[in-house]
Structures are given as C-alpha cells and as structure tokens.
C-alpha cells in the first residue's frame, strides 16, 4: 500500500513538474514571442487625430481649418474581377464606371498595389463599403484642409499640398507650427473588437492655431475693390495693403488676380494668380516716392512747406537727360505745391538739395531695399542701389521714384512712418500663436515728429487741392500721394505707355487709424494714373476701415467743397522718366551708371494739353475766419479761443502742430476747431 502511494505521489509530482516547466517555457523563455502573438490578436493600434492648426482672422473668424475625412482605396492586384469591381464601386461611390475601370486596369498593369478611388466619402458611402467587408477595399481616415471663405485672403493664407503640407503663404511660412502630428494608442480589445483599455504609444500634437492681424471684412472689401479696379482699367494686376500705422498690423493684404485655395493647381493655370503682388512683385513706385524725397528734405535741409521751389516751367535737363512734368509747367511754387501737384522737376530740385548721400540714407531708413520680415514666403526686398553704384542721374531719378523698385507692402510701411509721427514699424501679420499674443516690435524713429506732422499736412494738400482729390473721404480728413510710373519693357529697353498707378494714404489726418496703399500694375492711358485709378480704391477701402474700426469722424459729413481741381489734367502725376533707350533702369541687370542717358524723353512725353491748367478756384470767405494756432502752447491756444468765443477740441500735449479747419477757413457759428498738440 505504501509503495502504491509513493508511485502516485511520484506521478503527481511529475505532472506538476511538467506543468511548471511548461509555465516557465510560456512565461519566461518564450514570453516575448507569445506576448507578441497575444498582442497581435488582442491589441489594435488606434490613430489619434491631431488636426492641422486653424487659421483665424483678428476677430476669430476661421479662414482655414482641417477636418477628418474618409478616403477609399483599392489594391488592384487583389481585385478578382476588375470589371465587376469597378461597376460595384462606381455604383456605391457614384463614380463614372468606365473611367474607374480604366484607372484600375492601368494600376493593375503597372503592378501598383494601391489606387485611391475617392476622397471625402459620405457617411452612407462609408457604411455601404464597410458592410461589404471586401479585403481589396480599404478605407483610410485622413485630414483635409478647407478654406471656408474661398478666395478671401488666398495669397496671405496660401495652401497645402496633397499631404497637407503648406506650399504657399502662411501655410508654408508657419508649417512647423501649423502641422499636427497624429498620435497612436494601443487598445486592448475583446473578441468583438470592443475597446477595453488603451495606452498612448505616441501623444498627438495638435497644430497651433494662428490668429492673423487680417480683418476679413476689410480684406473682402479690399479684394472686391482691387478686382473691380483692375477690370475697369484693364490692368494686369493689382494689390492693396491696409495697415495700422502704430502697431504695424496688416489689416488687409489683397492681390489680384487671385485663386481659390480649395482648388488644387491645374496644368495650364495662370501662375500670376498665385503670385502675391503686394509682397513678391516689386515695381518702380513713381511719384509716391516724392514723399520720401520731401521727408528727407525736411530732415536734412532748411526747406519747409513754404520754401519756394523753382519748377522751371515743368522741364529740366540734367546731364543730357530731359525730364518733364506730366502736366502744366509750374514756375516757382511752395514745396507743398510740389507734392500736391506732383511736380517731377520740383521733386528733383528738392532731391538735389538733399544730396545723394542723404537721399540714399533716408530711402533705406524708410525700409526700402530690404525685406520687411513679414512671415510670407518669397518676399521681395525691392531694389535700391548701393551708393557707390549711383550714377549721375540717379539722384534725380530716385527723387521722383525711379531707379528704385519697391513692393506695395514697403510703401505701406513707409506711409506708416508719416502717419504715426516718424517711426518705422515692422509689419505684423501674426497676432497670436495659439493663445499667446505676439508682441509688437519697438518702432525705430527715423523722422522728427514735427517733420512727420508737416508731411501729413502736405499730404493732406494732395487730397484737398492736388492729384489725390478722388481719394477724399466723406466725414474724414486724410492725406495721401498719388503715383504713376511708366513700366519699363526689358525686351525693347524702352519705357512703355503702360503704367503702375498707385496711391498711398492715411486717415484721419490728426490721429491716423489706417494706412492704405493701392497699386495697379499695367494700366493704360491717363485713366490708369494713380490719381484716377488707385485713389478711388483708397477711398472705399479706407472709408470701410474707418467704419469697421469705429473711428470718429473729424469732418462734417456733407462738407461743402471748398476747393476743387479745375482740370482733369491736374490729376496727372506721371513720373516721366527719360524715355530714351539708354536710360538706366533699376530693374536692369548689369547697371551702367556712367552711361549717359538718352535724350529722347521730351519727344515721348505727353505734351500738356493746356498750359493754363492747374488753376484752382477758391471761394472768397466773407466774415470771421479760423485763427492760426500753430506753434502756440495749449495755454495760449485755449486763452485765445476763450477770448474769441471759439470751441477748441485739443488733442495731445505740447505745441499746436495741426489744426482743423485750417487757418483762414470761414468760421460758422457752432464750428469746433480740432487742434493737435505734439512735443
């Protein structure tokens, strides 16, 4: 009996030992192998979506966003019958059967194992395919970029390629921040594939939301107006930039022709449509550049707005190169009239007083010749020659806006200097990264405040009595400058009769809230000059900006026109260059500054139609007029106003610099006088 028990114990012991050995084999020796097999059966890897960052405008309106979609693909090598398969898929996915069959056959014959059949399928289509459960049909979840506003701000936002990687605009410039990296989670499932437990194998990184400084309402108006202007004046392209002069915020940046970023580029599309003309395409600015010339003169010479400038009858010959004014020749006129009437000869005379070195210095101080640093790809720096390469005629040319090339954005940056009191601000396009507000870079003072305010006054003259009368706003004072530059033809080495018509301006005058620069490239005839083609666009865009930002009016709504431009010719501000074939041009390669310019300009320049043009009709004001407060302290101004019973609206502190209405304006009962003080 005892022996039998011993045998039984021995057998049980061996059985236990065998189990133990098997356990050790399973749990220790082959643990990794079996754990892997179990994981393969029980675990599934789940993609955790991390959508690309949304792009908002400054008011939180979405301009670009990504949503997950399902796409269908097939493995043509596994398809049992391509004819039947294509018929089936065409029925379910509402596709053209013949086209799909051709694609599948081509993919099969080329040995491809992957063919995307349709993207962005509907829920019903997804359900239908899922129920089929065919091993050669695959459904993949992918992210798709949408631009809900269509063409709005297309050049600013840019676009993405088929892998949702930015290929233009902000999408490209901020690719690293916008891109989302999907995460992965390992999920333990039961036999019915229901999730029990999941562990994040890779944490998803959602793309950072970007808030732009663009205001979509103003952007829409800018795009609409530039499109209409380009069409109306048969221009090749156009651009508009609206900026806040103090922060440098770009409120609108429009370029025409434009495109819809939702539609991928097709072969044969016009590449110009995808070019951002406001940032990437430099042009000769023409007369708008006289603002820089006169600013430099105020800073570096003793000239002031009343200083007499000899316009020499609208014609000047320098180093064998003859330059004309585009309209009636003027004699000796105040410097402010040179700007208001856009006299080329006057600007050259001022430029000659400034000197080559100072001119070059101030051109660069205003930001020309270098990139603004806006986060958009392919920004052009424009072109400003180094001083040592300036020729004999470079100074006169630059004084009236030739031999330099600038972008619309650079012009807007320069206009901000005048508008904000003399500081160069860096254009800002990104307002927030995620929830982090982007700081405004400290501005750099380049003009004395006095001179900046003087420039504002002179630019107001352009609107009131000069070439920019079509930019005049209802209810707001404004300043600006028109420009019309002939376009140089590289093929024929001649200036053509197509123009870059431009207008740069700001409003209101005393405390500018917005700077708007409009450029139309390739306009034809006088109707394509800046004062005729671009100034009306400024009027609409600036007016809309002032309305949107709720800027209080500083003029009566229906102010009687005190002055008016007598002749249409006075709107001409054409910066007529030497039209000779040998005229040096900044856009040419291989500058030859020493080459004497040709002398055929006079022949090609449009002759003034009427030498008497340019006379202004000013109605004589009977009765009391507005006193001149300029240069007085606030105490003196208030005392004088109190003594005369006038209502003063003071703004700022220090010395009275600007006043509205201007001194000498007829004074009516109840009129209030706005005076801006500055130190």
């Amino acid at each position, binding site marked *: 009996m005892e022996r039998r028990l011993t045998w039984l114990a021995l057998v049980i012991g061996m059985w236990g030992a065998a189990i133990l050995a098997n356990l050790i084999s399973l749990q220790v020796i082959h643990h990794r192998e079996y754990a892997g097999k179990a994981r393969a059966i029980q675990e599934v890897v789940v993609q*955790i*979506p991390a*959508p690309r960052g949304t792009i908002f405008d400054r008011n939180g*309106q*979405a*301009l670009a*966003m*990504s*949503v*997950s979609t399902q796409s269908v693909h097939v493995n043509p090598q596994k398809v049992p019958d391509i004819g039947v398969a294509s018929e089936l898929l065409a029925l379910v996915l509402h596709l053209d059967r013949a086209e799909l069959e051709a694609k599948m056959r081509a993919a099969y014959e080329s040995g491809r194992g992957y063919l995307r059949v349709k993207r962005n399928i509907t829920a019903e289509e997804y359900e239908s395919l899922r129920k089929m459960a065919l091993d050669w049909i695959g459904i993949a979840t992918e992210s798709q970029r*949408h631009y*809900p*506003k*269509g*063409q*709005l701000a297309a050049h600013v936002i840019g676009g993405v390629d088929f892998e949702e990687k930015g290929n233009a605009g902000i999408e490209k410039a901020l690719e690293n921040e916008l891109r989302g990296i999907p995460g992965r989670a390992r*999920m*333990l499932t039961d036999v019915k594939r*229901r*999730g*029990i*437990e*999941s562990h994040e194998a890779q944490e998803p990184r959602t793309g950072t939301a970007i808030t732009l400084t663009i205001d*979509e*309402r103003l*952007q*829409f108006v800018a795009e*609409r107006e530039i499109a209409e202007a380009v069409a109306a004046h048969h221009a090749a392209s156009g651009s508009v930039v609206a900026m806040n002069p103090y922060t440098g915020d770009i409120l609108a940046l429009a370029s025409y022709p434009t495109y819809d970023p939702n539609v991928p580029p097709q072969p044969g599309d016009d590449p110009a449509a995808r070019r951002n003309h406001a940032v990437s395409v430099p042009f000769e600015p023409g007369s708008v550049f006289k603002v820089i010339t006169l600013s430099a003169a105020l800073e570096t010479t003793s000239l002031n707005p009343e200083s007499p400038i000899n316009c020499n009858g609208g014609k000047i010959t320098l180093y064998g190169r003859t330059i004309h004014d585009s309209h009636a020749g003027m004699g000796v006129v105040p410097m402010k009239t040179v700007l208001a009437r856009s006299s080329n000869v006057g600007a050259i005379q001022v430029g000659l007083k400034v000197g080559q070195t100072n001119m070059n210095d101030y051109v660069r101080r205003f930001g020309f010749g270098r990139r603004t640093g806006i986060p958009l790809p392919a920004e052009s720096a424009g072109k400003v020659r180094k001083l040592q390469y300036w020729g004999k005629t470079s100074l006169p040319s630059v004084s009236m806006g030739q031999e330099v090339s600038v972008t619309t954005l650079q012009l807007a940056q320069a206009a901000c200097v005048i508008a904000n009191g003399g500081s160069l601000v860096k254009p800002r396009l990104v307002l927030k990264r995620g929830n982090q507000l982007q700081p405004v870079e400290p501005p750099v003072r380049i003009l004395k405040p006095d001179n900046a305010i003087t420039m504002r006054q002179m630019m107001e003259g352009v609107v009131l009595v000069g070439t920019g009368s079509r930019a005049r706003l*209802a*209810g*707001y004072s404004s300043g600006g400058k028109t420009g019309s530059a002939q376009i140089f033809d590289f093929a024929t080495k001649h200036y053509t009769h197509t123009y870059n018509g431009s207008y740069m301006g700001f409003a209101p005058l005393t405390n500018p809230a917005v700077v708007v620069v409009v450029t139309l490239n390739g306009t034809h005839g006088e109707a394509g000059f800046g004062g005729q083609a671009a100034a009306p666009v400024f009027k609409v865009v600036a*007016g*809309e900006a*002032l*309305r949107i930002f*709720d*800027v*209080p*009016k500083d003029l009566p*709504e229906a102010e009687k026109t005190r002055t008016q431009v007598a002749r249409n010719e006075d709107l001409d501000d054409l910066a007529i260059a030497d039209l000779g074939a040998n005229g040096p041009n900044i856009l040419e390669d291989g500058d030859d500054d020493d080459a004497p310019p040709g002398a055929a300009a006079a022949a090609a320049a449009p002759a003034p139609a009427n030498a008497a043009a340019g006379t202004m009709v000013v109605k004589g004001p009977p009765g009391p007029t507005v006193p001149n407060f300029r240069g007085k302290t606030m105490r003196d101004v208030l005392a004088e106003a109190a003594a005369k019973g006038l209502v003063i609206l003071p703004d700022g502190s220090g010395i009275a610099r600007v006043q509205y209405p201007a001194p000498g304006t007829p004074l009516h009962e109840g009129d209030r006088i706005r005076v801006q003080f500055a130190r």
Partner: protein
Amino acid sequence: MPAFLRKNEAPAAPAPAPETVTRTARPRAARDPFRLRALPHDDIFFYCKRIDNSRLVREADPQARGACWSAIGAACLLLVLLTSAFAPTAMTTLAGYKLEALHSEERRLLEERRVLDLQEAELLSPARLDQLAHENNLVTPSSGQVIHLDKPEGEVAMVK
C-alpha cells in the same frame, strides 16, 4: 428491532420455543426425504415496526450552533474577501469598456464640432453675406450711423 420467525415450520407439529428448538436437534428419521434443505437465513423475515417518538425532544447543543454560525460567518467572510479581491478587476474591465467607448465618442463629437465650425465659417463668409445683402436690398451703414449702446446694469442678472 426486527423480529424473525421460522418459515418451514410444520403446521401439525407443536411449535417449540424459538430459543430451544434447533434443526440439529430434530430426529433424522422423521424428516421428509423429498423436502429440500433450507437455504441459509431462509427462515428470517423483516417487518416495519411503528415507533412513536413524537415525544422525543432534541437536547439543546450551544456548541454545535456556535460552530454552525462560525462556519456561515467564515463562508461570508471568504465571499467578501474574494469579492473585494476580484471586484476591482471586474470593475476596471467594465470601466475600461466605458472609457474606450467615451473616448471614441469624444473623438467623434470633436470631429463633428469641427465640421459644424467649418459650415458656420462658410455661412458667415463675407462674400455670401454680401450677396444676401444685395438680394435683400440692404446697404452698409455709414460710419457713425451705428450707435453701440452701453450695456445695461441688469444685463448680467438677466443672463443669470
């Protein structure tokens, strides 16, 4: 107690006392030669005897009762221990199911929200609003025509 009687007793012969009569004691000559020999225990019969024990009462046993309750208590304790040991695992599994379902639901709802945001953005497109305004003969108010009223004091209370 069972009682037994003899089976093959001759009806004519006088019945001897069971205690005194044995088979070996009977004379062989008187035996029927054709009669078969009796099998062992062939003469034993069982019958049921009715006993009335209704007046019997079990004696109280506190020790046994205590042992019984102890066993019940131990079983309950074991049940509680086992439950508390395995319940968290079971609850974790159930919670896991629920959690994963909620995760899935969360992802779906987030995606749905994004789609709705996209639709809202499309509906609020300035181009579309401009077109609608034109169709309804609406015009943009001029600057200064829109007056923003100050928030009344009671607004917050009304919202609450």
